[in-house]
């Protein structure tokens, strides 16, 4: 939870529009949107959250009831999603991922074959004038592409963009150019966006990271029956998030160098673990926020193999827990964090990943020293109070 900062209530009304919202929803953009909404509501803004009834970003099945509820200081409005037309979405999506040309007509066919939420769009059409600002995120969502057209002069887009095939579509170039304001989570994210489209005004807000009051690493080990040192990976265990490459590099470290660290992974869904690593990789599934924090504190290192990050909140959480970070150098944002903070090691390939893991195992005091740098960096740059200051400062110009 963000720490609310006492400030003068502005009474202005804002809509935060996000594809998913809920305690058990996993996702970087969703987490930042939720905490920003809660933080601004705690500062006196009147905040509505417009979202779907979906929990799972694969099926987009409507699992939460549609309707309006009050959640703390927020008014939560859920709308039923129309699930994707999987065959059409995947056929066109494959072309995009392969970098094959796709006409603008087909780009629109593709986005309309992903999740659609006409009821949310209809609500916004009818009620947009109630809101002094409309915040949408991420860029890669039908909801954003559609909603940015309704009141662009009052719309703030937090794109959460990284350099991936989808980002190069004309469809998103237009989306990035339309709103009144862009919020970026990091300087490298802004650089990526700038290379894609002519941009409106922007602010690098960063994202806030809540500082847990305490950690219970011993309790975590006991509850999970973990008696060996381990490295941790938290998030989506998908090829797009570097999971497959991580398995290959970890296998090299184990097979060639006798790495003793196990790998513990947490997150929604079922990961694919090679048979050769079945005894060395343990999936704990989805954990509560408190238990996740305990997992970060109990780990010897946190692994971030994904090149597709616009902020990487888990890296910050790891540093806060005093755990060093080992990250893929392919991810411009995480590399930037590691270099600025001097709190993380980055690797270019499996050999460098293996050496990073060996360093963590063989020189834990040095690795912990890196984590201290990381923690200082997070505390200095990403407390919610300062992130909310940046957001408020830019929002007030829209009023």
């Amino acid at each position, binding site marked *: 939870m963000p720490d609310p900062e006492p400030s003068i209530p502005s009474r202005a009304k804002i809509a935060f529009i996000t594809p998913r919202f809920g305690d058990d929803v996993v996702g970087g953009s969703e987490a930042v949107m939720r905490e920003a909404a809660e933080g601004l509501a705690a500062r006196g803004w009147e905040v509505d959250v417009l979202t779907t009834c979906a929990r799972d970003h694969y099926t987009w099945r409507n699992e939460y009831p549609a309707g309006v509820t009050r959640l703390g200081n927020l008014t939560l409005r859920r709308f039923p999603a*129309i699930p994707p*037309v999987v065959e059409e979405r995947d056929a066109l999506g494959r072309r995009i991922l392969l970098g094959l040309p796709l*006409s*603008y*007509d087909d780009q*629109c066919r593709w986005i*309309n*074959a992903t999740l*659609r939420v*006409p009821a949310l769009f*209809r609500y916004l*059409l*009818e009620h947009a004038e109630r809101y002094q600002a409309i915040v949408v995120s991420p860029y890669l969502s*039908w909801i954003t*592409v*559609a909603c940015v*057209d*309704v009141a662009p*002069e*009052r719309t703030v887009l937090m794109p959460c963009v990284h350099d991936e095939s989808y980002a190069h579509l004309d469809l998103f170039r237009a989306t990035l150019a339309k709103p*009144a304001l862009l919020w970026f989570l990091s*300087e490298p994210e802004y650089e990526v966006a700038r290379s894609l489209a002519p941009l*409106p*005004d922007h*602010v*690098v807000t960063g994202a806030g990271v809540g500082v847990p009051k305490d950690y219970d690493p011993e309790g975590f080990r006991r509850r999970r029956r973990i008696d060996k040192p381990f490295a941790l990976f938290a998030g989506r265990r998908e090829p797009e998030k570097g999971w497959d490459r991580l398995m290959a590099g970890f296998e090299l470290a184990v097979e*060639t160098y006798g790495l003793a660290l196990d790998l513990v992974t947490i997150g929604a869904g079922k990961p694919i673990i090679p048979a050769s690593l079945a005894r060395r990789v343990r999936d704990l599934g989805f954990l509560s926020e408190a238990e996740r924090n305990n997992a970060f504190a109990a780990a010897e290192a946190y692994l971030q193999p994904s090149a597709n990050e616009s902020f990487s909140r888990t890296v910050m959480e790891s540093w806060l827990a005093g755990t060093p970070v080992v990250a893929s150098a392919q991810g411009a944002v995480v590399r930037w964090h590691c*270099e*600025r*903070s*001097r*709190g993380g*090691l*980055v*690797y270019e*390939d499996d*050999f*460098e990943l*293996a*050496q*990073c893991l*060996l*360093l963590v195992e063989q020189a834990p005091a*040095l690795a912990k*020293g*890196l984590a201290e*740098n990381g923690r*200082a*960096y997070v505390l*200095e*740059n990403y407390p919610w109070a*300062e992130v909310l*200051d*940046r957001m408020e*400062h*830019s929002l*007030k*110009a*829209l*009023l």
Partner: protein
Amino acid sequence: MAGPFPPSPEVAASAALRTVQDLLHEGHAVEVMSPLPSAADHHGPLAGVKGAIGLARRARSFDVLHLQVSRGLLFRPEQSQARRVLDSALLALSLRLWRRTIADVGDMSDVPGGGGGLSGRFIWAAIDEILVSSEPVRNHVTAVMHMPPGRVRVKPGPRPAAVRARFPPPADLPRWQAQGPVDWASLTAQVQERAAAERARLQGDPNGDVEPD
């Protein structure tokens, strides 16, 4: 409202969105149907026999049908002439079931053949009012499409874009900073050196200096 709706490649989709916003602002209840999946409330064919049947079914549920004419809506130039004439006759019959029909043809760029011909004659005769983007288009519509001048109206121009607020630079906010001891660079260099040696040992040096085991 029947026509393309965002997200859509059609320019007409933006015009449809603005019209719906204006109608809602005036207090009307509006439902939107687009030919393809979109942010509209419904989607389905809006041309040919299926389009005619779909529009006919809805005719008595609404006071007005607003057609946002675009590629493939009302007309299907890819069909044979006989088929086009038959489709248009059916579509015209279905349009006549509505209490009132308005067609926004914009600058006519999405109307095949300039709106003339037998197909066009059927359709335009079934429309109560045509909206156009400018006076020259209005003249064309009255001359070529034989619409009485009283039933052709030039739309008001697009609303002026709202002025986007600019905000002063956040000079009062702290600068981004980073800090840390020097051993990070040393550790990074060590990782890279050891990995390079191992890469050469296990894969072979790309320069040929070291042979793989």
